[in-house]
């Protein structure tokens, strides 16, 4: 059987920064997975995702979030892409896992599933998002960007490739 699920690139911020970029992504895989630990203390812990430098409103998302007392669902059309439903806004880290399906398939729009988990010892949330990028272009660049400010030092992001048989 073919071994798969391989690390492609990883970044750890040595100092606060507004974004993390994975570029020159090969089309050798079927799906991509991003695992991100957003360090606490940043000025922006909402994580926007952009593909191939597309900063237009070609994204949409539908979310589900539980904050410890209620569960709600929201959505936004023709907007920016997001990986997390709610930022912890605290000194605690937030974990994000995102799967991008058929990222190099030039016949389909691109859909991702992302989960975010944060706990601040009294507040926190569990979130799920399905996101859409309305483009058939193969994804070769991924930008992870704070929506209003910087990610804190220590934030990590790793990109994996998963190949089907």
């Amino acid at each position, binding site marked *: 059987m073919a*071994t*798969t699920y391989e690390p492609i690139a990883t970044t750890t911020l040595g100092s606060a920064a507004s974004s993390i970029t994975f570029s020159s992504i090969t089309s050798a895989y079927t799906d991509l997975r991003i695992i991100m630990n957003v360090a606490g203390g940043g000025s922006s812990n909402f994580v926007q995702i952009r593909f191939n430098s597309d900063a237009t409103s070609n994204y949409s998302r539908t*979310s589900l979030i539980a904050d410890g007392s209620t569960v709600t669902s929201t959505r936004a059309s023709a907007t920016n892409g997001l990986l997390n439903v709610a930022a912890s806004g605290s000194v605690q880290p937030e974990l994000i896992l995102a799967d991008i399906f058929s990222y190099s398939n030039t016949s389909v*729009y691109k859909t991702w599933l992302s989960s975010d988990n944060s706990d601040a010892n009294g507040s926190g949330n569990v979130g*799920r998002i*399905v996101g*859409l990028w309305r483009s058939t272009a193969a994804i070769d660049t991924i930008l992870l960007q704070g929506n209003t400010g910087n990610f804190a030092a220590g934030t990590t992001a790793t990109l994996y490739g998963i190949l*089907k048989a």
Partner: protein
Amino acid sequence: MTGVLGGLIAAFPTPVTSSYESIATVTAAGVETSLNFTSILGTYKSLQIRGFFLSSGGGGGSMRFNSDTGSNYARHYLGGNGSSAFAGGSATQTLMTTADQSGSTYNSVILIDIIDYASTTKNKTMRAWNGYDFNAAGSSTYMYSGLWMSTSAITSIQLGTGLFGGTFDAGSTFALYGVK
């Protein structure tokens, strides 16, 4: 990985030691009533299915094991459609649910994990996470648990849509992975 050998700097390839292996992929060549994985070996601890489907009928996703069409399944779910959140469950079903809805233009994507699929002493539990966003109200994401009340090792998986009364459009693709 780099190392120093006799005063020379040498570069070594990083060994790949993944325990996650690709087993098989099924793709609908045309309109298909189901997509199937068969002859699954019991050599892994868990299985994962990743994929997407298109269905002009707009149906959700469903799954059966070992061609069992009896009322040996159950499910629970938590989901949202952008304006409301939903939770529920059903006992004594003839299939498990893996996806809420689909369409003919935008992918309905699914992640499914089946733990201890080869056990012959335990019933089988799976979890599924589905999302379908078409840039409009009514898009949704759902999480499911599914139970198959059988201690048989899983050797085949049947994927369907529209509670199996629907069809997959061409291009719908599912990939099966084994986790050691």
